[in-house]
């Protein structure tokens, strides 16, 4: 265990320095959430009065959804970095050392999740200025949910990246899966507005539960069953994804 923590920390430190030096990416990463809040959220404001729209005001509906979206999208493309490191031979060099393989994953994912948390925090701050009024305890739990979701998506992204070994192929694969997940999650527009058939399909989408849970959390409905459901679903999927990604790192070769 100490070895796992130590190695994760070492890996995190190295990856953190690397990410901080790629300032362009960092800037784009932070610019995105602000864009959504300033350019997209106002459109929803007028919709908020239509029948079927969840109660709580446009920003209380939209902000938690966006936070989940950041976890799907932001972390979904985390695999790009690992392809670069694979190409540069960094992964193979580390694989010859006794470094713990799970620690390699956790260290790299740690940085991607840290960036994700900063992005979501930024989202919340901008939201607060515009009229977002979350429940404090619920919001804290929502950050935990975003963290678990981010770990799951980032791990899947690493595993796919190590499988396809090509940035273009990774982008195509991630888009292929992420777009339907996103549209059927009720993030952009609430699923309560959707026809029954789509609502039924959405029941198989883990992110739909997460979005419901996120909205319940910011509204302070901590007893809502969607919250427990989404934590269990994300938790189990995250463990499976971490297992998958660690296995891929163990064998990663160009």
């Amino acid at each position, binding site marked *: 265990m100490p070895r796992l923590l130590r190695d994760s920390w070492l890996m995190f430190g190295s990856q953190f320095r690397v990410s901080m030096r790629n300032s362009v990416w960092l800037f784009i990463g932070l610019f995105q959430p602000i864009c959504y809040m300033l350019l997209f959220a106002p459109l929803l404001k007028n919709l908020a009065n239509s029948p079927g729209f969840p109660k709580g005001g446009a920003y209380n509906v939209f902000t938690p959804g966006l936070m989940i979206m950041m976890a799907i999208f932001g972390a979904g493309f985390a695999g790009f970095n690992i392809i670069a490191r694979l190409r540069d031979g*960094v992964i193979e*060099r580390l694989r010859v*050392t006794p470094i713990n393989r799970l620690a390699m994953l956790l260290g790299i994912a740690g940085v991607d999740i840290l960036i994700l948390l900063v992005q979501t925090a930024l989202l919340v701050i901008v939201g607060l200025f515009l009229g977002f009024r979350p429940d404090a305890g619920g919001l804290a739990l929502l950050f935990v949910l975003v963290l678990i979701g981010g770990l799951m998506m980032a791990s899947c992204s690493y595993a796919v990246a190590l499988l396809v070994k090509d940035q273009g192929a990774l982008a195509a694969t991630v888009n292929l899966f992420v777009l339907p997940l996103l549209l059927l999650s009720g993030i952009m527009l609430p699923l309560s507005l959707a026809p029954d058939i789509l609502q039924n399909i959405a029941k198989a989408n883990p992110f739909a539960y997460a979005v419901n849970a996120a909205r319940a959390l910011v509204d302070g409905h901590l007893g809502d069953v969607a919250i427990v459901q989404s934590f269990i679903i994300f938790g189990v999927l995250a463990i499976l994804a971490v297992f998958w990604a660690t296995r891929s790192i163990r064998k990663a070769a160009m």
Partner: protein
Amino acid sequence: MTTARGVNATHRSRPDEHQRDNGDKREKAIMATTAMIETHGLSKTFQARGKSVEAVRGVDLEVRAGEIFGFLGPNGAGKTTTMRMLSTLIVPSGGQAKVAGYDLRRNPAAVRNHIGYVSQQGGAEPVETGRENLVLQGRVYGMSHRDANQRAKDLISRLDMDAFADRLVRTYSGGQRRRLDVALGIMHRPQLLFLDEPTTGLDPQSRVRIWDEVRRLHDDGMTIFLTTHYMDEADGLCDRLAIMDNGSIVSVDTPTALKQRIAGDIISLGLDVQNGAVARVSETLQAQPYVRELQQTKDGLLLYVERGEEVLPEVLRLLDHQGVPIRTVTLARPTLEDVFLRLTGRSLRESVENA
């Protein structure tokens, strides 16, 4: 080539070489107990798009503790694949190996603790400085922060990297990167160091620098296993050589012994092989008592002869007599290049170009 000769000279003066060349059976038995690498039937078949590639076919190898062992072979011979198996990066498809005293399949973790590996492409993180790379490497092998920093500092001055150690690696020149790669490989003072083409693409000065370091590590008692395409490197640096071609080891011996297998000299004749007379003249030449062996190449003939300088005029007279026009003539003592040609029927340079 002066550098190569310099390398040769130091190598020849090594006192233990003679002993190694003439190792008797008893000595071999003792050596065997201190084998750093031992493989039996090691093989690797890759599956790529439905086709299978036999990259390594049943390699039996013994690398002794403390020696510099070289793998010489053209592109695609399987050198890197063998090294990647021995350094636990890929799992062999068949055979056994013991590396640094541990079974490769049963205990890869123990193997990792005792080896250093410098891959063909290197593996430094480009967006970190050389020093940051070194410290992380040391830490990953369990060094404390202080020890790792100290060791990094020592290696930076030892390998003459002070001028660029604190710059991002992506700004390094090829030679600077290669020095960092070697430093990364020896950061934790491994017993056994793998170097995959340590000097390919470097200028003569940088190559000599790497050679000097390899020799210094050897003097400190490290076992070094390297691959190369370069004859001078194989000849000057290695205690023993394995010549590899097409996934198999063709021959293993000291560079001197390998060259001695081709006794005498080599006369190479540039001829128009399309000319029917060549076939006739080679029969005649073969019949001469002084010709030990004759080989037809794509642009002429190779004659392995005794006392080359004496028989050369005779050979020329004979060709002239048969009316075969001669384009070029060279007389040479055997080099490893010739050994390679003799063992595989192809010249090393030719196979590198065609790969």
